[in-house]
């Protein structure tokens, strides 16, 4: 077989919706694109634990605390599924951590915003997890097997995340004036960053066309963004909160909501590292990694010592 026929074989599989598995031949760029996307996704889950971890000790009731703890633990799990999927492409876990810690790999910009009130836990669950679900459901059918399988797991677990967030918002929105204000304030701060989570407009998204061809992506950024806005605006109405976009208007002809211009300068600024919490988030990850080094080393040393002792015993017995 020549390179050409490998490529043809790969294209034929993609076209007939046959999944690509780790040991199958794949174009280098397909592999690179997947490593970039999956590791970025994994990093987002892990960094995403930080803004919410901030509130575990201050959750207003034992129920809320247990729920938040479970949600943050899920996110750790999601990061682990995804790191494993990326590892099947030939990158090591340590390399991925290194890329995160040196800033070479990105994670979702949304986690560079601070969580200053309890209502932010509601807004994150409702909006941020809601936007993530919009993105993730089509990824359950993505063309790379291990990624698709990881996403099936993630999506199964993610739905409780959004529901618990909406419940927090609903409770606050039905509460005292101050609580309602708090909910509205959280919506005001999280709405636009959530809308930006879908990434740049299709025209400015350099990877979209190729990723659609490879069936890594099934919908474009703008398609998913529109879908998210259409469903979320209705949800906001249900609890009497106002989406902070004066241009938001139902367009009968399109069958979609029209919405105002997105501040892409802010988006790129945060991506480039100048968001309110970029430094803090990276520092927290680096500290966790570096301060945990002795634990990793000790566990490995212990395992080796026990292995040696066992071998020793066996030789003596023989």
């Amino acid at each position, binding site marked *: 077989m020549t*390179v050409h026929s*490998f490529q043809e074989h790969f294209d034929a599989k993609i076209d007939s919706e046959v999944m690509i*598995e*780790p*040991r*199958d*031949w794949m174009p*280098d760029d397909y*592999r690179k694109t997947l490593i970039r996307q999956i590791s970025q996704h994994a990093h987002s889950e892990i960094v995403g634990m930080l803004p919410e971890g901030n509130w575990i000790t201050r959750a207003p009731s034992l129920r809320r605390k247990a729920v938040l703890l*479970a949600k943050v*633990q*899920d996110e750790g*799990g999601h990061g*682990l*599924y995804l790191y*494993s999927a990326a*590892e*099947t*492409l*030939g*990158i*090591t*876990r*340590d*390399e991925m951590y290194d890329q995160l810690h040196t800033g070479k790999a990105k994670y979702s910009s949304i986690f560079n915003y601070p969580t200053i009130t309890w209502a932010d836990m509601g807004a994150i669950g409702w909006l941020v997890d809601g936007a993530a679900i919009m993105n993730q459901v089509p990824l359950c059918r993505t063309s790379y097997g291990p990624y698709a*399988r*990881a996403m099936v*797991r993630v999506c199964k*677990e993610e739905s409780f995340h959004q529901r618990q967030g909406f419940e927090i918002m609903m409770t606050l929105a039905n509460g005292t004036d101050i609580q309602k204000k708090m909910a509205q304030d959280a919506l005001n701060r999280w709405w636009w960053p959530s809308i930006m989570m879908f990434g740049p407009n299709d025209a400015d998204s350099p990877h979209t066309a190729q990723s659609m061809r490879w069936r890594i992506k099934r919908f474009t950024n703008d398609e998913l963004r529109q879908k998210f806005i259409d469903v979320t605006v209705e949800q906001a109405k249900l609890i009497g909160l106002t989406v902070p976009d004066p241009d938001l208007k139902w367009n009968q002809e399109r069958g979609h909501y029209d919405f105002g211009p997105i501040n892409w300068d802010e988006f790129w600024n945060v991506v480039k590292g100048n968001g309110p919490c970029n430094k803090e988030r990276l520092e927290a990850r680096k500290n966790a990694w570096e301060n945990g080094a002795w634990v*990793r080393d000790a*566990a*490995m040393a*212990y*395992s080796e010592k*026990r*292995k040696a002792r066992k071998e020793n015993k066996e030789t003596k017995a023989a």
Partner: protein
Amino acid sequence: MNQFINKNLYGDYGDKEQATGASGTHNTANEWPLWEVFIRSKAGLDHKHAGSLHAADAKMAVENARDVYTRRMEGVSIWVVESKYVHASDPFEAASMYEPANDKVYRHPTFYNLPDELTHM
């Protein structure tokens, strides 16, 4: 020829040592070993591959597998095996590997033309 194919054979469960990608060798010396996790979802069913994780030893691998893969009662039993001990068939040999089964339709019950009146068979 052979060399070309080998170059592309990287990154699967059990073939970690080949997981070098296009960029050469990867250093995994500092990493905890990689383990494959298999879970029996309920008594009576097979253990099924769930995913992989890193752990220093088997005991830690089982405990981590519980935390990572069974947070919602997905399992009643866990197997872990260090990934380096898994050996896999070669996808490039799939055509010849599974060819013997291709022309043996008589192994399927539908191959046999029997009268409609025949029951309980």
